[in-house]
């Protein structure tokens, strides 16, 4: 297996800008483009907490698809796989400010954190206050549990986005919203797997070895390599060992209720996702864990990577109530409680 280098673009160097134009035009009732940023078409009510994220592009529908009611107020999209710079993040903070303070969520990647920290400094220099920043991580493969803060952000952060968005929309204070972010983060674990790799649209560089078809578990959202599994491992076995690793790391007791997210990293078929999901549910059942909510589809993609990630979020302490609140972004619509 090798990778697709031919892409349907105009000038790759303008791909992100043109993507934003096209995506926003296709969802004009929900989002609009301001100063290169994706913002809600109808701003949140005054006095409520604004929620912002800056991130590299190439992970769509994250994060452009999660801007909307009950979700983000502003998404500052950087170049492909690169966080935006501090100035852009400061403008995002300003755009999200409705007078109730602004929560800047950061998925833990070196560049994202550095640029966010520089942005906070810049904002302070400019006299902007009422800004809180929470760094989020969930990927169990990226650091051992005793160094949990060194873990990187993965697909499971969708649980955080969803619930923080709901809390802010409900009118929770900045402190309360930041507490929700930390609480959900601490209850969330993810682990990814992929076979093959993708090519960077601008540099054309394949990430890792394009001839390697081994299944790699613990790969990062930018194609950073992980551990390798044999060729003959079936979907049930893969799902089983990944779920076991997540549950062991989270230390969940039998009887616990979790949200289960199965993320498509890009080009997995819904057929494969569904078969993997079935395997994950069986693995959860073996451990006495109940999946009370599910989400299966593309969340944080890595272009057209043939991979996926499982994430679980321990849904205790009022989280279910937050999860079930309505949300409406270009990439995610939920009307009250949906499915399970």
């Amino acid at each position, binding site marked *: 297996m090798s990778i697709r280098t031919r892409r349907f673009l105009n000038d790759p160097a303008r791909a992100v800008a043109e993507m934003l134009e096209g995506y926003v035009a296709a969802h004009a009732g929900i989002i609009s483009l301001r100063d290169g940023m994706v913002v809600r078409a109808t701003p949140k009510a005054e006095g409520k907490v604004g929620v912002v994220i800056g991130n590299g592009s190439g992970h769509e529908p994250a994060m452009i698809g999660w801007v909307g009611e009950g979700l983000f107020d502003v998404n500052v999209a950087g170049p492909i796989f690169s966080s935006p*710079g501090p100035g852009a993040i400061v403008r995002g903070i300003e755009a999200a400010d409705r007078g109730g303070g602004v929560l800047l969520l950061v998925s833990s990647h070196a560049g994202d954190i550095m640029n966010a920290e520089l942005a906070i400094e810049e904002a302070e220099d400019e006299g902007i206050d009422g800004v809180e920043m929470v760094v989020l991580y969930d990927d169990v493969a990226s650091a051992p549990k005793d160094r949990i803060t060194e873990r990187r952000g993965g697909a499971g952060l969708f649980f955080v986005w969803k619930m923080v968005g709901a809390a802010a929309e409900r009118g929770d204070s900045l402190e309360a919203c930041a507490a929700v972010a930390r609480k959900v983060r601490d209850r969330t674990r993810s682990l990814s797997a992929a076979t093959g790799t993708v090519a960077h649209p601008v*540099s054309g560089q394949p990430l890792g070895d394009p001839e390697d078809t081994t299944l790699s578990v613990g790969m990062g959202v*930018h194609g*950073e*390599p992980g551990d390798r599994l044999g060729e003959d491992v079936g979907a049930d076995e893969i799902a089983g060992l990944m779920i076991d690793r997540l549950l062991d790391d989270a230390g969940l007791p039998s009887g616990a209720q979790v949200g289960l997210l199965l993320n498509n990293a890009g080009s997995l078929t819904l057929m494969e996702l569904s078969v993997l999901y079935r395997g994950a549910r069986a693995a959860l059942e073996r451990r006495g864990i109940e999946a009370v909510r599910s989400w299966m589809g593309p969340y944080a993609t890595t272009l057209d990577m043939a991979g996926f990630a499982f994430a679980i979020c321990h849904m205790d302490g009022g989280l279910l109530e937050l999860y079930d609140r309505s949300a409406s972004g270009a990439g995610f619509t939920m009307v009250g409680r949906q499915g399970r």
Partner: protein
Amino acid sequence: MIDRDLAVRLVVAAHARVNDHQEELSRLDSVAGDGDHGVNMATALAEAARRAEHDDHGTAAGVMRSTGAAFHETVGGAAGALFGAFFGAMAGQLSKAEAPDATQLVAGMEKGLARVARVGKAEPGHKTMIDALAPAVRAACESLNGENGLEAVMAAAARAARRGATETAGMRPSAGRARFAPDHSLGTEDPGANTVALVLESWADQLRTEVRA
């Protein structure tokens, strides 16, 4: 004296050099990172060179400040933040002198290194740009203390940076994306350290040419 025009020529030279090596830099970053380092650096320096040539900054400090901004505005990511920080700190130092010379430039490099270390929190040996930048700053200081001129100081810095970049091949990363697969990048040099070496080499070459002309 390092005036506005010399600063412009240095930024233009850095862009030309990094641009020539952009594929190699992205390839280095693709081994355990996300394959974009060459694109990032070439994009930022192209914008920096464009601004340097077209805007009217007046001073070398102004050119360095707008170069830092170009990194922050066009690229972001880890290296965007760090090179932006480097040039920003350098600009702050240069702006203190009426007519900055080699001493100020080396002081600017020291300030840049300190800012990079503060923002990135990486230490020497973590397989990052620090492993080229730190020895380069040290070599520049020593050369300056030996009462050498700007050309020789920069030549010493460039040699040290290159040596430092080469040595990163033997390191296991503890910072940046590559740290998640520490063994994967063994034998491969760190991309950011290479950019540091390329930039300083382009400056050394530019200064040598100018002195000879």
